């Protein structure tokens, strides 16, 4: 256990616990966008900023999702400097992705400008990279990733073409905080619209429901060394 000062109160953090997790446990709300408990924190979106100092040293601003509690740490989640920076980050994100409900909700919560002072970009993605991290760390497909750099940074398959390693699992669709990765499905195919990846579906031999893309079955058999007929029926019928 590690004792730190959080918003003026002495609290006990677990070994290796991040300030974001600790604050959440203590009932303190910190806004996040690129954070997800299933993947390693990355500190990209800069929404979860907090102010901290070590052993009465200079106060610095950093992302609470990456900041691990250490003895002698003093953390402020609610200071003026924290709010000012969070608001500026939100303004930049809202200029990039105008009219996004999630961003507007955060802006109202934090009293940030609803009308950014910059020309609108009409993008739908904030480049938090959560889709790529889930694809690599959880799914293991590594089908999508960051590409280019600087203001040209983008996310997608190799050369921004349809990713051949995408198994159509939809994990990226599920975690995207901007809800900008859409999945379309009918009886025959499933399509991840943002990546332009369309895969034929396998139908359950018992109930006939199209439960999984064929390509996903292939990869799962390879990764998990499953018997050949394991994926002939859907999970519901297997029970």
């Amino acid at each position, binding site marked *: 256990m590690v004792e730190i000062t959080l918003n003026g109160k002495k609290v006990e953090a677990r070994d290796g616990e991040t300030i974001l997790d600790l604050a959440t446990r203590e009932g303190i709300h910190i806004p996040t966008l690129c954070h997800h408990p299933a993947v390693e924190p*990355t500190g990209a*979106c800069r929404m979860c900023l907090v102010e901290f100092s070590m052993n009465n040293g200079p106060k610095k601003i950093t992302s609470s999702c990456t900041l691990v509690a250490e003895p002698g740490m003093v953390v402020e989640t609610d200071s003026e400097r924290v709010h000012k*920076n969070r608001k500026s980050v939100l303004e*930049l*994100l809202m200029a990039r992705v105008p009219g996004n409900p999630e961003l507007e909700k955060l802006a109202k919560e934090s009293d940030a400008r609803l009308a950014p*002072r910059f020309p609108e970009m009409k993008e739908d993605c904030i480049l938090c990279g959560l889709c790529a991290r889930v694809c690599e760390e959880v799914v293991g497909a590594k089908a999508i990733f960051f590409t280019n*750099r*600087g203001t040209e940074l983008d996310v997608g398959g190799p050369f921004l073409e349809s990713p051949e390693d995408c198994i159509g699992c939809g994990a990226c669709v599920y975690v995207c905080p901007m809800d900008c990765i859409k999945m379309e499905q009918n009886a025959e195919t499933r399509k991840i619209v943002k990546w332009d990846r369309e895969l034929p579906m396998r139908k359950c031999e018992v109930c006939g429901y199209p439960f999984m893309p064929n390509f996903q079955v292939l990869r799962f058999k390879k990764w998990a060394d499953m018997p050949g007929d394991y994926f002939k029926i859907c999970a519901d019928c297997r029970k």
Partner: protein
Amino acid sequence: MEKATTPQALLQIIEKHEKARDPNAVRISVCGGTGCKASGAGPLIEAFRKEIADRKLDVEVISTGCHGFCERGPLVVLHPSGVFYQKVKIKDIPEILDKTLAKGELIARLQYRDENRTVYVKEKEVPFYKDQERIVFAMNGHIDPTRLDHYLSMQGYRALATVLGKHQPGEIVEMVIKSGLRGRGGGGFPTGLKWKFTREAEGDKKYLICNADEGDPGAFMDRSVLEGNPHLVLEGMIIGAFAVGASEGYVYVRNEYPMAIEHLQLAITQARELGVLGQNILGTGFSFDVKINRGGGAFVCGEETALIASIEGRRGMPRTRPPFPAKKGLWGKPTDINNVETWANVPYIINRGVDWFTSIGTGDVSKSPFGGSKGTKIFSLVGKVNNTGLVEVPMGIPLRKIVFDIGGGIKNSKKGRTFKAVQTGGPSGGCIPDAYLDHPVDFDELSKLGSMMGSGGMIVMDDHTCMVEVARYFVDFLKEESCGKCTPCREGLRRMSEILNRMVRGQGKTEDLAVLEDLGAVMKDASLCQLGSTAANPVLSTLKYFRSEYEHHIATGLCDGRQCIDLIRYHITDACTGCTICAKKCPTQAITGENKQLHKLEQSKCVRCGVCYDACNFNAISILSGTEIREKLGE
């Protein structure tokens, strides 16, 4: 080269080479650095060697590392007299041998003369060198970087022999802490403390990295150190590895530095043969080896966590610190990472002692290594100064001395050009105006002025520089070189770039200045790495010191530096003598006029390239901006 199996044996080898070096021997040093090679030093060296062989003279021709005064290359120094020749060509060789070498006569046209036509005979008398304190560069100019025996003859590897023969790792760490040596790559973090943290960190394996990913536009000091004295950097790294307990090291060097890579690779091979690199170094049981990792030239990979990611084969994207590499670095193991110039200082600190090192520089580091800036720093002095090149100066030297004494003042000062600002610290540094030129140059003082030491870029700007354009240039550079991972840096730079590009076209708005300051504040505070948190410096420092220029751009479209082409007009005044030179040189035929008649400039054809302005010998072309355009041209 014989192999040394004990520290004592290495000392004997060094002493043998030191004795073999005759300080009075006749030697010709020709700079073989990249700058001089670009001006023809390669064939010049070959020609010197051939001529000397043909004449059967007992003279050694040494192809040395960079001497620093690149714009005057190829440089030649005759030893032991120290006679200094510049811009030497192959056809000059017979004359140098006949006159200077044989009779001691000087050849006036090859000698350096300053703006006032004063002639300087010896290298160390030349103003460019006189106020320098060359420690890291001390051997450049004397040794052939491909020759281990040259390095050994100048105390090379003596520090390593001392360390492995007499000291415990902890003592070396203490010594480096006490020396006050701070990171030369930009951050200025005390090197000894980094070593201490790595040494104390838990890990079954530890790594050492030399950061040679020099990315600042116009900066080439790390390149010159690696090219001119690779063994010095290696020796520093081996001592560091012993101190922190590392067994494997990497030099991360740009692939654009082929000579640095070649010389370093050769030095690694030679060091292994000598027995100072590899398994069981000097029979002490300590093992350490070095690999070269060639970088693809991304500016952000100079940031330590991005560099580590790049070595690991991942995208060069920084991660948040803590954990610092000293705890969790390469492959998750404790890793000490220092800059080329930092490593090159280490052998000198061991050889000459902490007291000697702390006698150079500012502040008091006896209680804390943060107490001052010690030793020297190499700057890459470029821009509108008479003498450009690499300069090594003691910490604490006033900026004025670098610009006006070593740099020889502002170029074309006789034509009325005056000093406006000096930009230190590379693209993320700040612009410092005349009022602060007497400030000492050290880590803390430059930060106080809103700039930084950075890796040592120094760009001098004259009154024909537009500070808004300067800010725009650096912001656009960083916008492309940012990794794009975090919001403040990526989106902040994008918006700064939009505003500044608008402003230099005369489309700035009054509220832009407050927005720029807001963006600067969030980038500084909230960015993930140092690239982002310093990226606003060029904007914030010019807003601080040259705010009126921004205001002029917005209010009247006046560009004080007469640089923004949308805001200026070239205009031929009554002083025109009708010499026709401008009309002949104008690439778009915008200028017309008869011989000995006042010429005319057709604005609609003018692309504002400035060729006429530079060509005119009668000061008859003026550059109009702001309200002058309406007043003079009625536009």
